[in-house]
């Protein structure tokens, strides 16, 4: 830790990165989707109660995947990837509903889900940081084995939660806003602070940008990498409780393909897949765009396969847009601040 002070001062432009402004493109997409909704179903949008409910529904449907995406964003900024998030959710949810449902009550279930999430994250982290496994391979292996274990524990059956406290989370409201949305808000806020206002966040960016430089600057890269996967696992544990509460049950196949949705949301939110750069607010907007598309397709009774094609198009468009803007932004800063300093990511 001696060389900590030797860490390069984070560029001032970094603060600008995580603002709403930088995500103007995604905000634009959101507004466009809402306008399409208004135009196609004016009779629904003319009812203010329905509109309020609809906004809450969209946010609620984004809540569990949003929490997962925050963890995923940290992992990707730190130069890794976590393909096992959906499987961790399934394992944590199933474990909580099978072992703790009747006997230990709501507190036991929540504790179990969080501990399972953290434990699996720890295993991922150890394999990657200390076992030197490629993150893609380690978490792919975890994806398969965690779902296998979840199937084993649940006896391949849907485990219904009989706990009214757990089931009540999804229908509880605080100040008129569903508890699930509050949980998402707290996780997003905590993630934002952690990334933008703490040493941990600065180290995450450093480790993902250039691990060797980060190591020379005195960062314990291995330990930091481990902690990132633990953080992702913890987010999955939280999401597992949210989903279990929503579905009043858990099963080994739950949270199917959440890894892809979380990665896509993080990426279209401006996170570089190669690490070193990313934003929490952007990731949240990414999740909201997907959640709004689902809503738009539902209210117009459109087929979900078309929805998936549209999702794919949006991912490509958003990444193209971000690359373009990022390039012009860095070029601008380069010229202004230090004409001799080469761009951080010349190839991008």
């Amino acid at each position: 830790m001696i060389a900590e002070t030797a860490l390069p001062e984070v560029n001032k432009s970094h603060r600008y990165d995580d603002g709403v402004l930088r995500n103007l493109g995604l905000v634009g997409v959101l507004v466009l989707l809402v306008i399409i909704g208004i135009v196609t179903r004016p009779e629904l949008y003319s009812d203010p109660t329905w509109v309020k409910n609809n906004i809450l529904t969209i946010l609620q449907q984004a809540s569990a995947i949003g929490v997962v995406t925050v963890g995923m964003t940290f992992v990707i900024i730190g130069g890794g990837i976590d393909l096992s998030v959906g499987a961790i959710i399934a394992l944590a949810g199933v474990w909580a509903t099978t072992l703790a449902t009747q006997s230990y009550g709501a507190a036991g279930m929540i504790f179990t889900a969080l501990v399972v999430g953290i434990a699996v994250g720890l295993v991922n982290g150890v394999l990657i940081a200390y076992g030197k496994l490629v993150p893609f391979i380690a978490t792919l292996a975890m994806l398969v084995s965690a779902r296998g274990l979840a199937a084993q524990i649940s006896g391949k059956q849907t485990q219904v939660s009989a706990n009214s406290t757990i089931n009540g989370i999804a229908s509880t409201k605080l100040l008129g806003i569903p508890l699930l949305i509050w949980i998402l808000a707290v996780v997003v806020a905590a993630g934002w602070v952690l990334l933008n206002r703490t040493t941990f966040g600065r180290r995450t960016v450093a480790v993902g940008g250039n691990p060797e430089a980060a190591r020379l600057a005195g960062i314990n890269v291995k330990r930091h990498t481990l902690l990132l996967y633990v953080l992702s696992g913890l987010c999955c544990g939280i999401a597992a409780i949210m989903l279990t509460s929503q579905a009043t049950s858990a099963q080994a196949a739950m949270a199917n393909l959440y890894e892809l949705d979380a990665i896509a949301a993080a990426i279209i939110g401006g996170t570089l897949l190669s690490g070193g750069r990313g934003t929490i607010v952007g990731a949240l907007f990414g999740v909201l765009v997907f959640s709004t598309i689902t809503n738009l397709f539902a209210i117009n009774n459109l087929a979900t396969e078309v929805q998936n094609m549209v999702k794919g198009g949006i991912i490509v468009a958003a990444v193209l847009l971000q690359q373009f803007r990022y390039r012009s932004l860095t070029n601008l800063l380069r010229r202004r601040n230090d004409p001799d300093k080469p761009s951080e990511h010349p190839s991008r």
Partner: protein
Amino acid sequence: MIQISRRNILLGSAAAGTGLALSACTSNDPAGTAQVKTDTSGNANAAAGQQVVIGFSAPAADHGWIAAITNNAKAQAKQYADVELRTVEAGTDAAAQRAALATLIAQKPTVIVMLPHDGKELNATGLEAMRAGIPVVNLDRAFPSAAAYRLQIKGDNYGMGLAAGKYIGDQLKAKGVSNPIIGEIPGIDSLELTQERTAGFNAALAVYGFKVANRRPAEFTADSGQAAATALLQALPKMDALWNHDDDQGIGVLAAIKQANRGEFFMVGGAGSKAAIDGITKDDTVLKATVTYSPSMASSAISLARLIGQGKGLSDLVELQVPKEITLASETITKDNASKYAPLGF
């Protein structure tokens, strides 16, 4: 910050590993209650006969219905002193099941009962077994080639849709609803069985001049059912009836309905799970009926495979041998007959 040493991490992961291993010991017992034919008094076919080795393969899926299929097959086989069941895991895809079945065929069992990942993909394996002189009993997912099986026993997906549509049509007509808003939540949409269910549903509704207002597919899981139902309820602020294709995903569908505080409509389920039958009996939710697609067909498949192996026919039929095709009827379970169907719930 807490110092995490390498030793601590190793200890931690060792502990986590132990926990994972322990879970296998503390897990719930999946066996539950299997659906078997036990009362065989007065049935000549029940008398012990020639020894039959039945090879069995079903996908190791994580859905309650598939789990019940395997459990039923094992439980039914145990009922017969003259049956030896040899199960092989089917792995996660058609290729893995093909490989597993190849080793099974080499062992020359008397009969093979299989629930293929996909009937089209396993058709060649069925042909191979039949050519090797081993009769194949196809369970639920039809082979395109009639030469690939000795017996095909399956549920009636189209019939499920018909039954659900008929129940909904009758109820709405009795209530005098002329232009109803009907919702539909199918399972995995790319599957042929889903498309058949939907086709049957639409055909039945058409008789009454009704049609589906909105259709949101889920994935046969409770959490996907919850998400699809939430979207559907938001799209249809008022609804008269809803058909949800699968009772397992129905747990999530019912949760979403409760969370949205809705109840102006009634719902019909699919498959006939124990939870659904209990719910219909209690009559405290919107779920008023479910149409059967029972995993008891696996128990029947084992019984019939035994008869085929022993060269016996079905005693009520004039025919000397077991027929080639059996399609189960899709029955409608309501509050009135729920007690009769309760033992078949899975």
